């Protein structure tokens, strides 16, 4: 079975020959792993089952002095957070789209590398990524506190903004369908450590209708829908399944009961993630990491699970802890390729 077929088996709610995996690392953690695996390229060494296509956070123009600008015009300071950065200033100063023009969703930079990457990793399951896929795009343009108050003060503006963002994404989804991809992986954090940032009422009023349109565009083309959404959002899973969600990430053990959720939803929803990045990976021993990884692999043996740390691994995680989970997932019985 190819990696692509193993993921398809899992998404179909069937029992896979082993638990597939797809693990992400921040630049700092990835650089240390790369050093360990050299001369082997990290992407080869990891043997991830998901081939990530497009760009999760978009493309940027370098403005110098650790500042970059995304295609939406938002400036990000990367002097501290080197992977994403922090928004500088506010593109939408007022609650209006009157003077704002959305960028071209069909910018070829999002699609140019897809054929080459697919040709190079033919056996992997292909996901086209759309990061900052709704709420996050809105707050990066408007400022998070402004946007959260706009839910009260300017509901028509919020609807219009989210609708435009969804339209932009749908145009990208439709273009991505011209390539041999398997799924679209959206990314949009809605949660806090406890509960939703905007609460369930506003989520249903503003976010849900646009998700429904975006997910429908993917399903109409016969592809799978993945979402990454950090925090305590499991109260939304039924709603999300109802509009066609196939796979949920990051499945954080600190904010949700991952065992009972997997039992409850197995066969209806696949979970990607699960390994503690807030506690075990940075603060546990390599033995702690091995124990938790084994537990997750046992839990996922009956399907509906793709192993991963519950976030891109941060720079504070010891190398031996990264190697501990990689060795276990790559040496599962049933995985004949490794």
């Amino acid at each position, binding site marked *: 079975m190819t990696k692509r077929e193993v993921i398809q088996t899992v998404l179909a709610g069937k029992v896979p020959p082993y638990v597939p995996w797809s693990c992400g690392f921040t630049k700092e953690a990835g650089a240390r792993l790369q050093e360990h695996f050299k001369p082997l390229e990290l992407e080869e060494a990891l043997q991830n089952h998901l081939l990530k296509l497009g760009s999760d956070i978009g493309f940027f123009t370098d403005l110098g002095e650790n500042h970059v600008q995304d295609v939406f015009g938002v400036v990000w*300071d990367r002097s*501290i957070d080197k992977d994403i950065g*922090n928004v500088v200033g506010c593109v939408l100063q007022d609650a209006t789209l009157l003077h704002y023009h959305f960028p071209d969703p069909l910018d070829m930079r999002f699609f140019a590398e897809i054929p080459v990457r697919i040709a190079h990793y033919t056996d992997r399951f292909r996901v086209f990524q759309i990061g900052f896929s709704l709420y996050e795009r809105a707050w990066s343009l408007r400022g998070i506190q402004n946007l959260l108050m706009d839910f009260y003060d300017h509901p028509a503006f919020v609807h219009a903004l989210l609708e435009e963002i969804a339209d932009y994404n749908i145009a990208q989804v439709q273009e991505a369908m011209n390539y041999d991809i398997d799924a679209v992986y959206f990314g949009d954090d809605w949660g806090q450590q406890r509960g939703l940032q905007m609460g369930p009422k*506003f989520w249903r009023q503003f976010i849900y209708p646009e998700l429904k349109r975006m997910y429908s565009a993917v399903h109409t083309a016969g592809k799978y829908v993945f979402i990454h959404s950090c925090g305590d959002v499991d109260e939304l899973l039924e709603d999300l399944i109802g509009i066609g969600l196939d796979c949920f990430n990051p499945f954080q053990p*600190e904010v949700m009961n991952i065992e009972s959720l997997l039992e409850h939803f197995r066969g209806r929803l696949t979970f990607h993630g699960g390994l503690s990045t*807030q506690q075990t990976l940075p603060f546990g021993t390599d033995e702690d990491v091995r124990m938790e990884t084994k537990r997750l692999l046992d839990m996922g043996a009956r399907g509906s699970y793709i192993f991963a740390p519950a976030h891109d691994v941060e720079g504070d995680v010891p190398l031996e802890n990264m190697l501990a989970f990689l060795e276990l997932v790559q040496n599962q019985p049933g995985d004949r390729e490794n």
Partner: protein
Amino acid sequence: MSLLDDLLKSVINGDLNATQNQVRAALAKNIPPEKILADGLIAAMNEVGKLFENNEFFIPEMLVSARAMRGGLAILRPKLAAEDIQPIGKVVIGTAQGDMHDIGKNLVGMMLEGAGFEVIDLGVDVSPEKYVAAVKEHQPDLVGISALLTTTMPRMQDVLLALQAAGLRGTVKVMIGGAPLTAQYASDIGADIYAPDAASAAQRARQMIKA
């Protein structure tokens, strides 16, 4: 007193205009500013905190209530100053060095203000030296440090050590909070208070002042 009840409701509803009008009306009726503050604005934000803890309020509600409370307080502040009514305590807050995530810290600041504290916000990515300098300058009752990342959590302990080295640790309590933090971690590094969210940060700071 129904005027103060109305004021309380306006803050809870996040209605800035009504809040300011009712503060003006209460002052016009010669209700003591201290009472307007305690039974109107502070009582309302206390209720907002409870609603947040019960998952009835979320960040948008907290933000609009805090905006209303601040609007009311702006009108009340000169009167409080004229009568020499002091805040219940002074707090210096900021995010840990290297941490740029500030919405949690901002909410804590608003809730502390709503609980009657004077809040000095040092912003994001605050070094231990800056905390020490702020404690020297402002002589607060409490220092609050927030972190979202596991990578910046160790910088909290650096603040505690820097306060110790400057001979200031005994003069001030230290409260920490943020997504990856636990009560155990707070106790391990010797912080005085752990706050899991903005509402409990205000509540625990108030308990500390009363103790």
